[in-house]
């Protein structure tokens, strides 16, 4: 218990010692901040997550198809894109989009800048998931479709992508849940999403630990609910697979 004798640890402890007045103040703050935080979630965090996931997924499918196409320039463009996005920090990408471009006169509002940044990010990461899922479908499935006279796009649409979807649900859910949490980075480019609201409230009343813990719990609840949705999706798509 050496650390308790340490000064800062004692301070920490004192702060948490039971004091009815303090307790009441904590509850008050937790309660009064809940609504603004949830508003941040509903107005920014969740829309940002949903919009970027849909756009990112579309981009990811295109990128995955470009990667597996036989046309070399498509392959290169896709490779460079994925490599650049995966090889640079998301926060840096957001800063380039918002502050960087802004400094040379290309001004994008915070929310659209965040949408662009996160979509590009999801597109790159999810494209690898989708590519792997497509490649996991046995060659015989392509051949059966070809044998029937289906074109490449018919084969993809009717045979390959429906099966690849099932394979990609768990890893894509990972991407999605990661995205929910990553949107907190949008606070750095002035999007008043949930985490930025928490920062603003904490700056006002100095209850930093309380507010950041509260916002953490809210993220956790959202992600937990999403993982329930993932389970349902998996079960739905598993109906044609033997267990």
């Amino acid at each position, binding site marked *: 218990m050496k650390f308790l004798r340490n000064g800062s640890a004692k301070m920490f402890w004192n702060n948490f010692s039971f004091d009815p007045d303090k307790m009441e103040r904590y509850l008050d703050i937790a309660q009064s901040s809940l609504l603004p935080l949830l508003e941040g979630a509903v107005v920014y965090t969740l829309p940002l997550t949903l919009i970027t996931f849909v756009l990112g997924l579309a981009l990811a499918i295109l990128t995955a198809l470009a990667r597996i196409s036989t046309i070399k320039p498509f392959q290169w463009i896709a490779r460079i894109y994925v490599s650049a996005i995966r090889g640079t920090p998301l926060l840096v990408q957001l800063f380039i989009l918002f502050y960087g471009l802004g400094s040379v006169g290309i001004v994008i509002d915070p929310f659209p800048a965040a949408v662009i940044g996160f979509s590009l990010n999801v597109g790159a990461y999810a494209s690898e998931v989708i590519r792997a899922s497509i490649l996991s479908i*046995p060659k*015989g499935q392509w*051949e059966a479709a070809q*044998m*029937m*006279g289906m074109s490449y796009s018919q084969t993809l649409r009717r*045979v390959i992508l429906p099966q690849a979807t099932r394979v990609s649900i768990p890893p894509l859910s990972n991407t999605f849940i990661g995205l929910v949490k990553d949107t907190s980075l949008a606070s750095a480019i002035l999007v008043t999403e949930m985490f930025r609201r928490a920062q603003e409230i904490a700056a006002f009343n100095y209850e930093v630990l309380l507010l950041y813990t509260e916002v953490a719990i809210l993220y956790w609840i959202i992600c937990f609910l999403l993982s329930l949705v993932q389970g349902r999706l998996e079960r739905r798509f598993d*109906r044609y697979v033997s267990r």
Partner: protein
Amino acid sequence: MISITGLHKQFGELEVLKGIDLQVNKGQVVVVIGPSGSGKTTLLRCLNILEVPTTGSITIENQTADFSKPVHKREIELFRRNSAMVFQNYNLFPHMTALQNVMEGPMIVKKMAKIEARKKAEKLLAKVGLGDKLDFYPHQLSGGQQQRVGIARALALEPKVMLFDEPTSALDPELVGEVLQVMKDLADEGITMVVVTHEMRFANDVADEVIFMDQGKVIERSKPIDMFTQPKEERTKQFLNLLQ
């Protein structure tokens, strides 16, 4: 009906088909036998252009694919409609029910209306003895049942020729019979069939002609009775002896 001339297929350095010339008449059942690596499956896959031949030409009815010059994708897609293949591993679409598997070709490739495609699929599945399994997914069916769905799926395409690539090789022995019976029925209906198989009894009972292939060439071709009782070529004798 089918006319193959000077067909070659090369995989890199390996020459799998070394000049195949072959005619199959309408309504004929031709069984191709031979040791593994003889090129018999490749020949069958070339008929559906699942493998693009290196050179040579294939004519089915009055449509010719000439591989001495590059063949366009669209041409390949159209030429494929002449034939339909039944695969060794069935290759059914696992995310579709038996009915949907059979409806898929008529609906998507032939643009048939859904109701008609459904009727057609129901009829074909009844024909292969699976009228009571319409809504089963492939994994809920036995291997023999899956392969019969595979046959119905191929028939739904209304091909001029049915191609069978070792259709019973992946089956448990007790399930082979039901698949062969369906094939026999098709032969009796006068459907043109090219069958690659190791089922010599089937070849003997059903084939109009048996072709023996070895090392990328057609070694011998004759009526089953002649092939199995008095083969002319030494290589054929060796192969048939090994089977007994």
